[in-house]
């Protein structure tokens, strides 16, 4: 099949034609001007041979576009993700061809799983060399096809504006996701008459489905007659900006809310109807009560296996209302009795008008009872230990108290992530940035950099394990060079803690390749001119956190925590949620 030769531009009016003196510029300059037209002011990237013309064009626009030179292209994608999640804008990353492009793969896959809008621009060898195994040529379109929402290779300079316009439209509309635009070198250097028109329509793509009023009515009927209704709050609530509508629904009919990992921060942790975190290492009550509820209102979530455990038993007794903008997620894992294929905000707004005020005191009491059980058995000793080594949970508690739950918390992957997600008391939407679907170790340091760039007035704290830190620690160089004031808390147990926990519980304590002999993290930070402190004693912890938070600029705090601490509760993988273990 052939690609279209002609770019359909908006029909020009007669006036346009008369006044049309379109600038003749290079493809590279067109890239930068197109990005500026989309409101881009921050780019994370790394130059190389095939993208040099674009970097050369960037040189002339330094007053409008701030380029952050990362230390590895993976860092550029995670930084762009953090930037996007903190600012609500599309994150932009640049990389060269070949290894530059392949280094984007992990970040693209992560952004695809976690619905983060990115536009990644890669340089490519000249069109005449495509397919010849030229130096640093790789089929990045083929490689990234399954992990991008859309991608395109541009081989002619005059196609650049339309490709970038389409990329931004696709990345940010509907269920957001990463997009990759691969531009051959000849297109970067060739000149043409530049004109930019934003993309507002693609005939084969319907990002915002029409709200089905009948489905909303059916959902309202189910909720109004429910004895034990239960709201699952997913990332889609944050993406749609529907936090208030969700809380309004919960309050009107007194419905408890539990959050998925990516849905955290949509509902303040101290809200009386907030029940806690769903999933493998979520809270006891919200997990157990999935077996009790009679109507589930799942909003902007996709029933990940870490949430459902054994799918055949998960909420099998309940009627399910699934509000979801991505049709492919509806009925993918859990059958929806009422499917509302819509934007969460639009659907909840319509739903709220049909909901009757209700009380579910006994049902809410079950959540409080379950919470007390978890608090007594697990949380109290984790949060307020009086002896022994420092606990991860008490560190997160102190951090939460001292930031008043208002920091942007960026977590990596593993035990520290689960502990931070369980115990940080989020107050404001979009303050939880983590790698959920992909579980990408090494996410947090670059993502925190991006988050700080996207929300410079906020305190941004990365909580990271000793294993994860060493996957992307080179980004300390970026933090130093660009003077990005992120705080980094390493919870160091000298283990790949989550894998070790599984080995302890399911592999007979055979600790295969999980113990880490670690370097001196403070010396490493010092090498990057980042101040830091190592804490090993409980009595020094609070003051050290204070010092870190008060420091103007980047700071690294290493907290040596209990070596063989476990995260509980835990639902063993693939088992019914009711098998949740408290110890």
């Amino acid at each position, binding site marked *: *099949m052939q*690609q279209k030769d002609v770019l359909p531009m908006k029909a020009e009016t007669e006036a346009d034609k008369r006044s049309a003196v379109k600038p003749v510029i290079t493809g590279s300059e067109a890239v930068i001007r197109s990005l500026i037209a989309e409101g881009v002011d921050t780019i994370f990237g790394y130059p190389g041979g095939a993208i040099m013309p674009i970097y050369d064009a960037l040189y002339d626009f330094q007053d409008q576009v701030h380029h952050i030179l990362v230390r590895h292209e993976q860092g550029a994608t995670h930084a762009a993700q953090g930037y996007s999640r903190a600012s609500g804008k599309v994150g932009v990353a640049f990389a060269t061809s070949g290894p530059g492009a392949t280094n984007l793969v992990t970040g693209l896959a992560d952004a695809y799983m976690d619905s983060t809008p990115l536009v990644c621009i890669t340089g490519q060898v000249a069109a005449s060399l495509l397919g010849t195994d030229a130096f640093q040529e790789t089929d990045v379109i*083929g490689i990234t*096809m399954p992990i991008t929402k*859309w991608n395109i290779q541009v081989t002619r300079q005059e196609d650049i504006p*339309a490709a970038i316009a389409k990329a931004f439209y696709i990345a940010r509309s509907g269920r957001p996701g990463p997009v990759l635009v691969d531009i051959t070198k000849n297109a970067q250097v060739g000149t043409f008459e530049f004109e930019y028109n934003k993309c507002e329509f*693609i005939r084969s793509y319907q990002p915002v489905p029409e709200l089905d009023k009948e489905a909303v009515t059916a959902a309202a009927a189910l909720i109004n007659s429910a004895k034990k209704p239960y709201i699952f709050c997913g990332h889609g609530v944050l993406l749609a900006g529907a936090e208030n509508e969700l809380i309004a629904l919960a309050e009107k009919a007194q419905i408890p809310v539990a959050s998925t990992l990516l849905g955290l921060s949509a509902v303040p942790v101290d809200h009386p109807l907030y029940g806690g975190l769903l999933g493998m290492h979520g809270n006891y009550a919200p997990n157990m009560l999935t077996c009790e509820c009679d109507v589930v209102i799942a909003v902007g979530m996709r029933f990940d296996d870490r949430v459902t455990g054994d799918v055949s038993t998960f909420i099998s007794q309940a009627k399910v209302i699934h509000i979801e903008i991505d049709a*492919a997620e509806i009925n993918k894992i859990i059958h929806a009795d009422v499917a509302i294929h819509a934007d969460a905000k639009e659907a909840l707004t319509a739903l709220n008008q049909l909901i009757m005020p209700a009380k579910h005191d006994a049902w809410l009491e079950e959540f409080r009872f379950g919470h007390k059980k978890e608090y007594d058995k697990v949380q109290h000793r984790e949060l307020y230990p009086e002896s022994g080594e420092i606990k991860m949970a008490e560190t997160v508690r102190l951090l939460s108290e001292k930031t008043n739950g208002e920091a942007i918390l960026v977590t990596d992957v593993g035990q520290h992530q689960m502990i931070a997600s369980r115990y940080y008391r989020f107050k404001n939407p979009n303050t939880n940035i983590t790698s959920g679907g992909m579980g990408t170790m090494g996410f947090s340091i670059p993502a925190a950099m991006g988050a700080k760039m996207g929300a410079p007035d906020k305190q941004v704290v990365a909580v990271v394990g000793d294993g994860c830190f060493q996957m992307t620690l080179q980004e300390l160089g970026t933090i130093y060079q660009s003077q990005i004031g992120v705080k980094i808390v390493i919870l160091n147990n000298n283990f790949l803690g989550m894998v070790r926990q599984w080995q302890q519980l399911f592999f007979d304590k055979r600790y295969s390749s999980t113990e880490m002999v670690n370097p001196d993290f403070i010396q490493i930070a010092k090498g990057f001119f980042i101040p830091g402190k190592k804490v090993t004693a409980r009595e020094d912890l609070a003051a050290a956190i204070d010092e870190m938070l008060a420091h103007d600029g980047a700071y690294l705090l290493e907290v040596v925590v209990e070596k063989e601490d476990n995260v509980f509760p835990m639902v063993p993988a693939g088992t019914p949620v009711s098998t949740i273990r408290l110890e």
Partner: protein
Amino acid sequence: MQKEYTVTVYTEDRIGITNRITIIFTRRGINITSLTTAETEIPGVYKFVITVMSTREKLDKVVGQIERLIEIHRAFVHEEDEVVYQELALYKISTKALHTAGDVERLIRENNARILTITADYFVIEKTGHQQELIDFIKKLEPYGLIEYTKSGRVAIVKWSRRFHEHLKELDKTVASY
């Protein structure tokens, strides 16, 4: 239960669209048994007809994931009895056999086949039908010296479709984006 299904997909005309569709089957370990694609009556809109052995449950999800692709208009999964379909086969036979065996003509007539071309060395028979009929015909021709056999994928038309042509024509009024 695994059985044969026909999946139809309407797409924009784009480089790589075949790859985008097929990797969704690959991910779930579904083997594509035939794939036919060609432009529809609307320039720039293509139709894929894909046959697979799988389950309805899996294919409903696959079709959802195909429809999620930006440059896909619609995708459908059809049970065997929901489509009218044909495949086309060509059979190359040595001309000598035609002269020595008397009943090739009867065979062609009885099987609704036809001769496309005859040369001094070989002749080519065309037959349309369902896969099994086309394979059965091989056996009948083998005694006459079958030189080569080839078969197309499936083309299918949906029994329950209404106004499909009209819908496609409406699409033609809009402009395909870049």
